[in-house]
Every structure is written in structure tokens, then in C-alpha cells.
């Protein structure tokens, strides 16, 4: 791999941070310069990200554009980056949204402009880092780092109750992720022998494999726990807890019912940029976490909690839609619709079928595009009228026809009319859940979301856009300007392209889905998936081609696991 390829992801991740340093040097009064500099950063980052996406070869190895550099050797932390199909696609989504977010905020934000753009750039780096990280600690750092700029976006540039919303968002997510940190540390100490410990994701995964296989077979056949190897016994005892810790962290982020109540508040209070990024990318970090960490690392435990989590997803779909029907606040409605849409993502994933998983991944992209666009467009309306209540609008189609056309197209995408991107994802998710071992009632209930989705979105569209202009304030509203059209047009293009020509996108997702499903199926002892099939390739640390993070043999791991569970145990001798 060329130098350029192996460092391309570094460039994508850190370019916004680099520009952040530049922006920090600009005088705060030069608002225009700051905006342009940020936009340029996002655009260049977009080009690099697109390049990375195009360089990703669907037929190639699992992780591509991979690079691993030693970082904190003492703890086995390395700066390991790389993308699989899902990460590459989400990366594309993130860099796609970047410049559009800046354009959306061009006039929306006029106070503390410098700090605002610094936050945007830092946030972009953090999210991209979390997507590309292949080291668990690196992921964790980026995952948590993204909280801070988002907290500031909501808390500083939000509307009336921004402080409450920001605090709620921060604490809610933090509770989950702190438990995840505990689980990560537990994993670190349980899996590997002292001296050979690593946070490297493929290493950890491979280290757990044989024990996972043992546990799943044991659960499937109802074996006696005392016959398990010590590591497997430890995994059987602690795996479910670790899984739940990971799952909680990601469930809050998704957000899954019933830990979703931070989302409406955060969305309602956030500025347009905050809402777009939150809906577009940050929620996907939750589903991505399930896909990358929670399920593959603990398939046996995931199997155990599969039906309850799928049920929560289904409840989320229906419940989110019902919530939408009870809203008067447009942003809140869009926020609850996110709960409903993300329910599809989680359901598709927990269907454990390739159709479902691919649909879920595609739905993540779709939601980013269509809900991102909804927030963008509503931001334009809010900028003009400074109210979020449906009752304050009505007849907008007459004064802003172009804007209405944009909004209606995005609405069709959001309710998954065939020919738009939403349909392909929703269809595959529902098909996948029908094909899965989940109860049929789940799939039927999930499909009612198709009806309810149309009901609430079109209701809102009618209230806002149709009828006569009843309020005097709405009579003089200006239609979209050039900058606004430029910010919204890419969304429309993507909605149509992803709806009509989905296969290039799906081609990159499919191999990842197949691997994901095989790994998830490992948790079912009767599935017949062998550990060798789902092994991950481990990239050796640069400079230490052989010794770094070796995959310990079964006995070694077992010993280590056994001894670690005993307090005061001496680290075992690593045998050659």
C-alpha cells in the first residue's frame, strides 16, 4: 500500500483539526474569513473522504486503507485506523454533511462565530476518528471527544432552553459510555495474558473467538459450565454484563426506546448545524457501535438479548411514530421521527440476515440524508420566522414555492416512497426481519411504521405548507436564496441517486453485512459458523512485525483469564 493510501484516513480525520488551528489564529471579528476557511476545510475533507470511499474495494479485505502506529505501547494501545464497508459509507456521509452544515449556518449563527466554527471542525474530526478507529481506546476517545463540541453547539448556540438540553444530552450519553469504559477495561483484563494485552480491535476480537464459540455451543446444547475452558467460563459469566454495558452506551446514542428522551430536547434546542450533525452522523455512531463492537465481541450474549432489543426497536418504530402524531413542535416531530427511523436500523441489524443488515446500514445513510435535509430546510424556515410551532405556519407553499418543492421531495424520501433512497433501506430491513428468526409479529408491527410515517409527515406538511396564508407574519417570507439552494440541492441529488441507483452503495455494504451476520450468528451455537470463518486479519505494528500483539493460543488465554479472576494472581508466563 502506498504512503498516500495508508495515510489517507489520517488526512481525512485530522484535516478539520488542522484547519481548526488555522481558524483559531484568525481574528474573531473576521467572520467571513472564518466561514470561508471552515467551508474550504470541509470541502477539501469531503474530496479526501470521497477518494477514500472510492478507493475502498468491495471485493478486497475487510479493513482497508489500514494503518497502525504505536502509541502507548505500555498499555497495548496503538493508533490503528482503517475502514470496512459500513465505516467507509458513514465516513462518506459525514464528509458530505460537513460543508453543507457550514453553509446552513452561514447566516444562522452570528454570535461567537469563531468558536462555533472551531466546534464544528473539532466535532468533524472526532466523528471521523470514531468511525475509522480500529483500536478500542482510540474509538472511545474519539467517541467521547465528539460529545464536547456537540454539548457546546447545543448549549451555546441553541434556543431558549439550551442549557437544560445540553446538560441532559451530555449526562445521558456519559452514563452509558462510562459503563462502556468499564466493560472495555474488563475486556482488556479478561481476554489477554498480562504482557501481551492489547486494545487493538482485531486482536481482541480474535482473542475472544474460541471462547465465544465454546460459550455459544454450551448455551445451545445446555452443557455443564464446569467443562468450559476458564476463559469461556469467564466470558459466560461476564459477557452478558459487558454486552449490556456496551449496548446501553450505544442504545442511548441511537437512541433506542426508552432511553430516547434526550433526543427531542437536544434537537429542539440545537441550532440547525447541531441538529443536522446530530441526526446525520452522531446517532449513527450508536448503530455503528452495535455493529462494530457490541454484537461481534459478545455474540453469545447478544443472542441472549436479541429478541428484547429487537422488541425495543419495534416499539421504537411504532412509539416514535405515535409521538410524532402528538407533536405541535415541528423540530420535535422530526426528532421523534428519528426515533422511529433508527428503530428500523436496529431491527434490521438484529434480524441477523444479510438483507436486514444491509438494509439497516443503508437506512443509516438514508436517515442521515433525509433527516439532515429536513433539519436543514426547517432551519431556513426558523431563521425567517423564529418559531417551531406548526400553528404559526400555514400556506407557506404560496409564499415560498421553491422551498415547498424541496421540502416535499425530502418528505417523500423520509416516508420511503419508491424511487427515493428511503424505500430501498426500508424494504430491505422489513424483508430481512421477515426472513429472520424473530417473531413474525415484530415484522408486522414494524411494517405499520410505513403507514404511520406517511400519516405524521404529510399531516405536518399540510399544516405548514397548504391552505391559505392565515398569519400576517408569513405573508412576506422570502423564498430560498442562492446559498440556500446550493446547500439543499446536494441532498436532493443524493435522495434521487441513492433511490434509483442504490447498488454501488450496497456493493460496499454487502461484504460488511455478510461478515457481520456470520459473526453475529456465531452466538448461536447451532448456526454452524466456525471461528476460522470469522477471524479478523490482524495488522502487525509497524516496526515490530512479529511480536506485537500476538494472538495467544487457547491455553494461554485460558490461563490468563483464569488467573486474572483471582485477586493477587501473578501474571502467567507466556509460553512460546
Amino acid at each position, binding site marked *: 500500500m502506498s504512503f498516500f493510501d495508508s495515510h489517507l484516513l489520517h488526512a481525512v480525520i485530522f484535516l478539520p483539526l488542522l484547519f481548526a488551528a488555522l481558524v483559531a489564529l484568525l481574528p474573531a471579528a473576521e467572520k467571513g474569513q472564518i466561514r470561508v476557511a471552515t467551508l474550504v476545510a470541509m470541502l477539501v475533507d469531503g474530496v479526501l473522504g470521497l477518494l477514500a470511499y472510492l478507493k475502498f474495494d468491495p471485493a478486497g479485505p475487510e479493513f482497508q486503507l489500514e494503518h497502525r502506529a504505536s502509541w502507548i505501547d505500555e498499555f497495548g494501545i496503538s493508533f490503528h485506523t482503517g475502514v470496512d464497508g459500513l465505516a467507509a459509507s458513514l465516513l462518506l456521509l459525514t464528509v458530505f454533511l460537513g460543508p453543507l452544515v457550514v453553509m446552513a449556518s452561514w447566516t444562522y449563527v452570528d454570535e461567537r462565530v469563531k468558536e462555533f466554527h472551531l466546534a464544528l471542525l473539532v466535532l468533524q474530526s472526532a466523528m471521523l476518528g470514531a468511525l475509522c478507529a480500529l483500536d478500542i481506546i482510540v474509538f472511545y476517545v474519539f467517541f467521547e471527544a465528539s460529545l464536547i463540541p456537540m454539548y457546546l453547539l447545543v448549549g451555546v448556540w441553541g434556543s431558549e432552553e439550551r442549557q437544560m438540553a445540553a446538560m441532559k444530552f451530555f449526562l445521558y450519553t456519559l452514563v452509558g459510555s462510562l459503563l462502556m469504559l468499564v466493560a472495555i477495561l474488563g475486556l482488556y483484563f479478561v481476554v489477554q495474558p498480562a504482557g501481551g494485552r492489547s486494545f487493538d480491535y482485531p486482536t481482541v476480537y480474535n482473542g475472544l473467538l474460541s471462547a465465544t464459540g465454546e460459550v455459544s455451543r454450551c448455551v445451545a446444547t445446555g452443557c455443564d459450565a464446569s467443562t468450559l475452558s476458564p476463559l469461556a467460563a469467564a466470558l459466560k459469566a461476564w459477557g452478558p454484563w459487558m454486552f449490556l454495558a456496551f449496548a446501553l452506551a450505544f442504545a442511548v446514542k441511537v437512541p433506542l426506546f426508552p432511553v430516547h428522551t434526550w433526543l427531542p430536547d437536544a434537537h429542539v434546542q440545537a441550532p440547525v448545524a447541531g441538529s443536522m450533525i446530530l441526526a446525520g452522523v452522531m446517532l449513527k455512531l450508536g448503530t455503528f457501535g452495535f455493529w462494530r463492537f457490541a454484537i461481534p465481541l459478545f455474540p453469545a450474549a447478544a443472542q441472549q438479548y436479541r429478541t428484547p432489543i429487537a422488541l425495543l426497536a419495534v416499539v421504537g418504530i411504532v*412509539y416514535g411514530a405515535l409521538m410524532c402524531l402528538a407533536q405541535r413542535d415541528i423540530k420535535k416531530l422530526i426528532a421523534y421521527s428519528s426515533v422511529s427511523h433508527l428503530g428500523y436500523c436496529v431491527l434490521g441489524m438484529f434480524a441477523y*440476515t444479510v438483507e436486514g443488515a444491509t438494509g439497516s446500514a443503508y437506512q443509516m445513510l438514508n436517515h442521515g440524508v433525509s433527516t439532515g435535509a429536513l433539519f436543514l430546510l426547517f432551519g431556513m424556515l426558523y431563521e425567517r420566522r423564529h418559531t417551531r410551532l406548526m400553528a404559526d405556519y400555514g400556506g407557506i407553499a404560496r409564499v415560498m414555492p421553491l422551498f415547498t418543492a424541496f421540502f416535499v421531495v425530502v418528505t417523500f424520501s423520509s416516508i420511503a416512497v419508491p424511487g427515493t433512497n428511503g424505500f430501498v433501506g426500508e*424494504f430491505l430491513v422489513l424483508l430481512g426481519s421477515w426472513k429472520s428468526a424473530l417473531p413474525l409479529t415484530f415484522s408486522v408491527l414494524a411494517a405499520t411504521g*410505513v403507514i404511520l410515517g406517511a400519516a405524521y409527515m404529510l399531516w405536518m406538511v399540510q399544516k405548514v405548507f397548504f391552505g391559505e396564508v392565515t398569519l400576517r407574519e408569513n405573508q412576506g417570507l422570502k423564498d430560498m436564496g442562492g446559498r440556500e439552494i446550493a446547500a439543499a440541492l446536494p441532498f436532493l441529488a443524493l435522495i434521487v441517486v441513492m433511490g434509483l441507483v442504490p447498488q454501488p452503495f*450496497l456493493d460496499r455494504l454487502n461484504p460488511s453485512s455478510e461478515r457481520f451476520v456470520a459473526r453475529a450468528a456465531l452466538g448461536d451455537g447451532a448456526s454452524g459458523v466456525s471461528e476460522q470463518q470469522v477471524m479478523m486479519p490482524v495488522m502487525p505494528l509497524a516496526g515490530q512485525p512479529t511480536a506485537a500483539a500476538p494472538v495467544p493460543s487457547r491455553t494461554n488465554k485460558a490461563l490468563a483469564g483464569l488467573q486474572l479472576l483471582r485477586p493477587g494472581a501473578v501474571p502467567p508466563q507466556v509460553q512460546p
Partner: protein
Amino acid sequence: MALHSSMLTWVNAAGLAESLYFIIALPLLGAFISGVFGRLLGRANVNLLATAAVAGSFMLSLLVFAAINNAGVTAPNPFGDAVPYALGHDYGTWFAAGGFRVNFGLAVDHLSGTLLLVITGVGTLIHLYSTSYMEHDEGYWRFFAYLNLFVAMMLTLVMADNLVLLFVGWEGVGMCSYLLIGFWYKNPAYAFAGRKAFITNRVGDFGFLLGSFLLVLMVAALPAQAPSQAGRLEAGAAQVGPLNLRGVGALATALPYSAAKAPGAEVTLESRVASGPLAGFTYGGVLTAALLLFLLGAAGKSAQVPLYVWLPDAMAGPTPVSALIHAATMVTAGVYLFCRLSPLLVLSPAAMATVALIGGTTALLAALIAFTQNDIKKVLAYSTVSQLGLMFLGVGVGAFWAAAFHLVTHAFFKACLFLGAGSVMHGNGDETDIQKLGGLRKEMKVTWATFAVATLAITGVVPLSGFFSKDAILHAAHTHVVPGFEGAMHVAYALGLLTALSTAFYMTRAYVLAFEGERSKDAKVPHAHESAAAMTAPLVVLAVLSVLGAAWAFPLLPGTHEPVFENFLLPVFSVTEQVRAAAGTVLVPDHAGLPWGAYVQAWVIALIGAGSAFFLYTRFFPSRAGQPLPAALAFARNLSRNKFYADELYEAVLIRPLKFVARLAYQVLDALVIDTVAVRGTAWVTAQVGSALRLIQTGDVQAYAAIMAAAALGGIVYALSRVMP
């Protein structure tokens, strides 16, 4: 045949097959240009462009139609032998994941070929008509963009060679219908009607999706269980996807009806699915469930009971829209779908009986409502619902060709009626109340003549097309035998006859009130004016077609009694026929001569209906003006006028409870239980614990020392207690 071949040697069938997408692309392009640049182009250009786009499609359709009448022309079929008298092309994967794939494939056979001509032909006429009808409307470019888009979607629907692509057209036409019903969005009632149509359709689409999924699961389960029977089902499904329309036939062929009919078969409809999510259900049960789900879908799109409530409200749209979408094309999509699913439908007598009864019930119910409607468009709307019910009745009794035939003739005469109504409105200051019209016979001659012809056609007067197509359905309902469901079929037949009687009555009433007698005193304008040629020319063409359509019902050859159209559709329904014959679910008597008895009966029914209406509304009621109706009649009239309170029922049973649950869940569960009690509760407890702990942290060193001493003492005592015996 020789003539055909020689005529078409210059058409390269393979090249034509590859170019099928042009038929869709033209109106799509038209929609794009009118929609984006329409205001720049100006009215005349948009009129020309939009009409030309559809007319171009019509030309191409003619070419394709000519080509598929050539015996040598076949469409590829990955599930078995090539399909004769058809053209098809597979443009490759649309989307694929795991074992599922959908290809972007188009195909035209005699059924879709006929519909292509209807859609583009009637579509062109209606575009032409609209150029005049919408001449004063500001939003002309929007209108033509939507209308072109609709045509493109409708063409996708009939040309799709798989159910998913068909669904694209299916929802696409629904979307256009939404946009066009709410075209005059400033009126909140119109915007609401659009939304109602879309959401009701969505209920149906829910059924469509679920039905397709069941088919996918069946296709996945069958080859694993009965590899020898499945034939090329698995290979074909891997190549073009399990929801291909040829795959529907392959699936039906692979599933024998019962062990008694196919001794030695590994799997019949009576056997249970061995593996997968459907394990334990019988194939027959799953099939019936899938078909009933599709019926829900079709009921949504084709306005059948219980989802018919949207169509009458859909009359809020401009009248050409009502003619094209809500009479001639879109609403017949459900009938088309069931023609495509016919190989499977004949395997499930229960589903057939349900379809027939739903159709019959809808037909009669809608006809009864039409008795008392005064809005001319509402009368026609309920009439459409009723006629669609008849088509479903035909499908349900296994007379697919008759249903398709009625679909075509209905497209002609109902489009003519709607456009006639539009012309009436145009000439009378947008008056739609037939009580306030009257006497138009003298003032709008062309409109009157065409409307009268179309009324005679729908009434079922010999020798107009409507008579033959309606009679073909009723005759089939009378003679086809579905073993086990004879009673249901008798009921359906009776419903059909009553509908025919009612149709004659209410159509004559509407015609008489609007066109005969004296001009009403409440008329908006003193004198109506006849519409421009752009509007009357389509009327004339459609009226002529309503007459000439009958030709398709004539016997193919002297001495045989097979109607031309039935023979024409034979290649389309050949698989259905094979499956039906093997399963013995529908017994079709041979054509034993023209059904003169049935013809006379239908003729008498039409005469009674029309005659009584004519008498009542020209003689009886005018003479009794001012006198109140008898109580029983008044009650019946109110029931009918209020559409049997269907909307109110939905409101009370479905919509209000749903809204209530949503509000309750939001206020109680979300805001109170989860957010306030659980989330803020946790925060509050944390804060309280923090405050409580603050009390301990006094900063008083002596107190700390005392606690330390006490703790140390306690520790020592505990240690001693453990050490001491």
C-alpha cells in the same frame, strides 16, 4: 399473420426490447423539464412539451404493440421457456443484498401492451384536453409536470416485470395522485383529500409489502423442500429475483393443489413448510394469506371496501386528473395486479371467493351511494368505485380476461364521462351540482352527445362496449363454478346483477338532471357555452372508442364463440389456465354458443333501471316538487347521501382512538413516566444524595477525628471478635 410479419420486418425486436425504457423516459423527461424550467418556458411551450412527451410514448407503444402481435417475438424467461407474443429486457441489478435481488426489468405482453395503449392514448387525449381546461391556471407548469410524472409512473407499473418495480409505479402513481388531488392546495379541504388518499393507499401498500415478503419466503422455502418440483424456480430467482412476475407463474406451477390431484408430489399446498420463519404453516395457508394481503393492497389503490373512502374525496383535483387517474388508469392497478397474480389466485378458492365478494359488495354499495349524490363528479366517482368492484368480481370468479376487458372499456367511457363533466363545469362557471344544471342538451351539443353515448355504454345498452364487458363478467359469475364456494359465487352474481340495475338508474338520473329538462333557476351562469375544440375533440374520440370497444367482444371467427379479446389474452393467461386446469379450482364451461339468454336478461335489467330513472326524474319528481318524501325513503336517502357513514365510522373507530393513544402516550408515558420520573428522577435523587452527603462534610476537624476514632475502634473490635474464640 403473413401480413403482420411482412409489415414488421423493419422492426428489430431485440432492439425494440432494449429501448422499452424510452416509453417511460419520455414522460419522465417531460415532467422534469416542465417541473424545473416550466415557468421559464411559458405556457404554450409547456403544453406542447408535455403533450408531445405522452404522444411520443403513445407512438412507441403502438410500435411495441405491433411487434408483440408477431408470432416470432418472444421475451426471455429465466424460469422456463421464453414467453411468446411478448417483449422484455433486463437492465441488470437494481438492488441486491444477501440472497435477495431485484432487477430492473421491463416486459410487455398482450395485457400490458393493451394497457400501454390505453394509458398513453387516453393520456394524450387528456393532456390535450388539459391544455384548454387549465388555460387560466397559474400553476400550469406544475400541473403538467405532475401529469407527465404520473404517466411515467403508470407506465412503470404496467411494464415492470417484477413486483418491486411494479410497486415503484404503484406508489409513484399514489404520490402523483396526492400531488394532483391537492393541486389547489390553498383550499385546506383539497389538501386534506390528498393526504387522505395517500394514507389510505399506504394502508394498502402495507398489505402489498407484506404479501410480497410472504412470496419471497415461499420461493425460498420451496426448492429446499422439493427440489425436483421447483424446476428452475431457484435458478431463476437467483438470476432475476424471487419477485419476478414470471417467477409468480413458476411458483404456481411448482405447487400442486393437493396430494389427491398430484400423487407422489413431494410438496403440495396441503404440506407444511419445513424450515425458515414460516415453518409449520401450510403452503396453501401462506398463499391465501399472501393473496389476501395483496387484496388489501389492491383495495387501497382500486378503492374497494373497506378502503374506498378516499376516491370520492379525490374529486377535489382538477377534472382531467379525475378522468385520467381516478377513472381510467391508476385505480385499475389493483385489477392489473390480480391479473398478474392470477396463476396463484386460482390456487386459492378462498381468496377467490373473498375477492369476488369484496368486489360485489363494493360494486353495490358504491352504486347505492351514487343514487343520491348531487355533485356530478361524486356520482362519477362512486360509479368508478362500483365499476371497479365489478372488475374485482370478474377477477374473483376467474374471468381475468373479462375483468381486463371491462378495465379497458371502462377507461374509455368513464374518461369520456369525466371529461364531459369537466366540459360541463367549464361551460357553467365551475358548477358541479346537477340540481343546478339542466337543459344542457341544447347549449352544449358535443358534450351532450358524447356524454349520452358514454352513459349508454356504462348503462350497458347494446351494442356499446360497456354492455359486452359487463356482461362477460356477469356471465362468468353465473357460469363459473368454484367447488366449495358455490354459495359465495351465487351471492356475488346477485350483487353483480343488482349493481347493473343500480348503475342504469343512477347514471340515467345524473344524465337527465344535467342535460334534459329546463335550465335550473339556480344556475350560476344563464347560458352555458360549449368548450373549445381541444376539449371536445378528446370527448368525441373517447365516445367513438366507447362504441368501437365492443368489437373486441365479438366472436373471433364465425362459428366459434370465443371473443376476440379472450383469445388475444390467451398467451398472457396460459400459465393461469394450466394451473387452473390442473388444480380444478374453477370449472369453466365451454363456450356453447353466444349467451343469448344472458344478453336479453342484461338488456332488460338495463332498460328497467334506465327507464325507471327516466320516468322518475323527468315526470314523477318534477310533478311532485315541494312534497316531502315518505319517511322510509327519506331515511334511505340520508343513509345513501351520507355514504353509509363510512367516514364517520373510520373517524370514530380508528382515527380518534389513534390520536388519543398518541397524545396519551406522549403526555403520560413519554413526558411523565420516562422523562420526568425516570430521567429527571434519577437526576433529582443524585442531587438529593449529594446534598445529604454535604451535611457530613462539615469541615470540622474535631468531628472528623471523632468519626475516625469511632471507626478505628469499631474495626479493632471486629478484628478481635474474629480472632478471639
